[in-house]
């Protein structure tokens, strides 16, 4: 299996995705209306032919091959680009199957590269071919023989669909939705009508979350945690070991009676791009969209093994500054991890490996200064999570800043 390969011929169609459905709908309605003249008909057919030709050309000029230690992808008709991805740099290979692709039995392979390499996309391949290629690339990336079978995975957690549904019913968008319905029947349609766009966004958000969380499962593989989920679009993603920037455990107040929580992991994908100064995408990924404490603990044991339990509390006078948060505030750090808990209504806990700390900040607001308190922030490459030691005693926070700086430096060196 060497030499040049092409992607599946239906790839352009799948890649166009929703646009194809929208176009088909438009054409169908115009063609069915009685006033369609022959010219109109010809114009429509012409447009379809042109689009199909463009898709065909894009398929024709794209090819890939495994060339020694590289994966090479060539694409483009006028501006030809030839990309070379060193296999040894592969961090993880994700498999993504949008709804349309699943109908045709196709899959996309996304190779996440280390360093600043970005991601290589092979969209789309036949299902079986994609699985085989994934195993082969993984084997090659580890320097093993290419026929090495994919290593066995060890299933950790499977989220039952019923629980996903229940968790969405008990979520913010649903609360907003319920508020809207109440508004509609009490105040009347005129006021409620104004809020209609919010409602649409709400429903869309709920659908997206359901779609992403459905059938979620987490397994442990040698290269990291493998997460699988999806209703229409299914994804199989890997969280590579050693790439975890921060972990966050959230227990929303509405889930409390059931003891459910959500576990998010911040994985640095690509780093800041020098050329265009744009903050590249780094997503916070829900590894466990909704699970029990025990399941979360199981995953934490893999993600942040041996992390200490926060038990240091802020001084009692911090109550004045953070009355709602106070009873949740706690922190701890050792040579490897910093852990902090916080949250007003929801309970939030954050883990940061000290090797991933990018910078440290000590912030002292006007109220805090009066109470001789200060907050320590540990900034990580993720955008959304970063442990914060809130409302520490002022003098203590200085010492802790020095010690954390020291520990983070030591952690970086090893």
């Amino acid at each position, binding site marked *: 299996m060497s030499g040049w390969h092409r992607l599946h011929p239906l790839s352009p169609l799948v890649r166009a995705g929703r646009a194809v459905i929208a176009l088909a709908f438009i054409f169908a309605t115009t063609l069915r209306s009685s006033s369609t003249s022959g010219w109109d008909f010809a114009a429509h057919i012409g447009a379809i032919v042109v689009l199909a030709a463009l898709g065909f050309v894009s398929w024709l000029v794209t090819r890939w091959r495994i060339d020694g230690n590289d994966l090479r992808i060539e694409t483009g008709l006028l501006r030809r680009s030839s990309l070379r991805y060193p296999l040894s740099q592969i961090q993880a290979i994700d498999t993504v199957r949008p709804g349309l692709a699943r109908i045709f039995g196709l899959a996309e392979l996304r190779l996440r590269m280390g*360093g600043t390499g970005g991601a290589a996309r092979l969209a789309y391949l036949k299902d079986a071919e994609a699985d085989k290629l994934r195993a082969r690339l993984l084997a090659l990336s580890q320097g093993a023989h290419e026929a090495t079978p994919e290593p066995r995975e060890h299933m950790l957690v499977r989220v039952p669909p019923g629980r996903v549904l229940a968790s969405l019913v008990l979520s913010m968008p649903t609360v907003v939705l319920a508020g809207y319905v109440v508004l509609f029947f009490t105040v009347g349609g005129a006021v409620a009508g104004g809020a209609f766009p919010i409602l649409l966004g709400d429903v869309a958000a709920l659908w997206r979350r359901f779609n992403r969380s459905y059938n979620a499962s987490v397994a442990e593989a040698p290269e990291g945690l493998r997460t699988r989920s999806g209703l229409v679009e299914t994804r199989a993603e890997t969280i590579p070991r050693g*790439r975890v*920037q921060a972990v966050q455990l959230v227990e929303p107040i509405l889930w409390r009676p059931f003891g459910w929580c959500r576990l998010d992991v911040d994985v*640095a994908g690509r*780093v*800041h791009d*020098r050329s265009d100064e744009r*903050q590249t995408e780094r997503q916070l990924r829900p590894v466990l969209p909704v699970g029990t404490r025990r399941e979360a603990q199981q995953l934490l044991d893999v993600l942040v093994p041996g992390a200490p339990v926060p038990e240091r509390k802020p001084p009692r006078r911090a109550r004045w500054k953070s009355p709602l948060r106070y009873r949740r505030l706690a922190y701890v750090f050792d040579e490897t991890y910093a852990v902090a808990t916080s949250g007003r209504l929801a309970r939030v806990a954050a883990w940061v490996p000290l090797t*991933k*700390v*990018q*910078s*440290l*900040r*000590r*912030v*002292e*607001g*006007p109220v805090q*200064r009066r109470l001789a308190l200060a907050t320590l*922030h540990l*900034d*990580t*490459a*993720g*955008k959304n999570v*970063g442990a914060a030691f809130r409302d520490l005693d002022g003098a203590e926070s200085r010492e802790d*800043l*020095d010690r954390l*700086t020291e520990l*983070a*430096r030591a952690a*970086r060196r090893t």
Partner: protein
Amino acid sequence: MEREEWKRPSPRLRRVRHVEALVPTAVAALVALVLAFANAYVGIGAALVVLAAGFVLDTLLQRRVSAWGYLEREDDLLIQRGVMVRRLSVVPYGRMQFVDVTAGPIERSFGLATVRLHTAAAATDARIPGLEAAEAARLRDQLAALGESRAAGL
């Protein structure tokens, strides 16, 4: 922490901040005075309010200027700033992805520049305004060299 000398931005930063506070104030006050042609009381009243706000802003900015400071240590750069909210940032050299030096039109006319450090974390807010052009260039080169020798991956 070893006791070393904290460095401060150039004293000319005070003048930059004066210009930044007073030029917009003057423009807004003029606009308010034009209003005075339509309604004398409203116009002059608005102009006075604008001027008062401008002077408050100016004093705040001036206070902030003296709060800036930076300290180059062996492995990291410390930056402190702020009067109301006091901030101290520690940026390890090994974590810097790049350093850029910018100078807005007002800063440039006073021969000053701002040095900004970027790490992979978006929350890192490490900049030092009002550095003499020569000091800014020295700091940039120094940081770039230190960053290279201590670089650590993600």
